């Protein structure tokens, strides 16, 4: 019985250390990926600057249009021009 209990206790210690270690790795991997993507593949942040044309589309609206076209056409469609009337 004592053997089984000491075995269970060691599983408790090893188990908790491993779970903490793995979730620590989740944090490390996540942070490394965020830094790498921020450095090499950043997306322009904030709304797109308006051009000379007064009919420029806000970035949020544009993103919604792109997502809608992407979904409807299964990724095959492309937006070439968006005009305000």
């Amino acid at each position: 019985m004592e053997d089984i209990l000491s075995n269970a206790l060691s599983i408790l210690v090893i188990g908790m250390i491993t779970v903490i270690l793995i979730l620590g790795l989740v944090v490390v991997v996540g942070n490394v990926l965020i830094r790498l993507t921020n450095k090499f593949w950043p997306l322009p942040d904030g709304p797109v600057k308006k051009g000379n044309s007064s009919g420029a589309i806000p970035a949020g609206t544009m993103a919604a249009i792109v997502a809608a076209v992407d979904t409807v056409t299964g990724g095959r469609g492309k937006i070439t021009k968006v005009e305000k009337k």
Partner: protein
Amino acid sequence: MQEIFSKLFNMTAFGAITYQTVIMWAIAFVLLYLGIKKKYEPLLLVPIGFGVLLANFPGAQMGIVDASLIEVGDGRYKNLFEIAHEYGILNFLYFSLIKTGFLPPIIFMGVGALTDFGPMLRNLRLAFFGAAAQIGIFTVLIGAILLGFNMNEAASLGIIGGADGPTAIYTTIKLAPHLLGPIAIAAYSYMALVPVIIPLIANMFISKKEFQINMREMDKKYPPKHQIKNMKAVKIIFPIALGTVVAIFVPSSVPLLGMLLFGNLVKEIGTSTSRLAEAATGPIMNTATIFLGLAVGATMTAEVFLTGKTIGIIVGGFIAFALSVTGGIFAVKTYNLFVTKKINPLVGATGLSAVPMASRVANEMALKHNPANHILQYCMASNISGVIGSAVAAGILISLV
């Protein structure tokens, strides 16, 4: 004439109905009532409840038989045709889909395709509380041994504390398949009771002041160092990178975690793999859920279920669950002692799996104390890391026990 009546009587199941049969029917009716009327995890409790009913119709040959009956010696087993022919279709389903450990990872693939790692990636430090909330698993392992369970059974009982149905089933299949029915029932019942259990524990250990810690205010006061400038790219690379790292450290967690991360990857890639994500979350997951529920329910025959061990599992499972919630709360409390950017302890309470119900319950509790304190996205961070944590804990148990 009497002979005809006698033959008629023998054809029916009346002669084989015992009081144990009636008790099992009552248990099945309760499970069906909880699933249908109370809507407690209906997708699982309804098939499990009906499976219990099917298994306990005398003479129907739907109950799952002991694995020793399908062994033919030298580590070899009867083939699936023989199993179906001799023991019926539910045994065919059980030995082909459950005993092989096939369905839980398939369900995890669907769970992965439904999971958004975004909240966790935005609040990475909260991922640690998904680890603290696994303490119930390992603590109850020791408690169960003291109660007379053997090591394999104790480990299967402890995993209920992870609050993750597929993980509990997968671990039990590997370690103590004879306890599959009661452990699955306990795991899913306590998951359904998250809206009762989390408030019960949280109200015991969290002070009024702690309930009011506003995470958004904290974020404004102490903004995170790094903003994510390309979330889509991070979300696509994350499951690949994490899967690779975890596979090296805990290979035995790969069947569950690997499938979870694969499901998540096909979801995050977007339109080019959307058909795979739809299949994983729709037809595949639904089919797997039906077969899993029915086959697990069918393991609960009277002779297997009506034992003292079942009561031990029900009580032990609750303790494991409650300890996991408590562990998460105290981990946050301890963390708060050393930092200025405080965390609401409810975030720790959601460090077990049970996504997203645990987060929703914690958010509602926070809103009760302060209607402007929305903590859902923070709870989701520890909640999602809890899914990873419990899969890793399962892998550890399978390797070490």
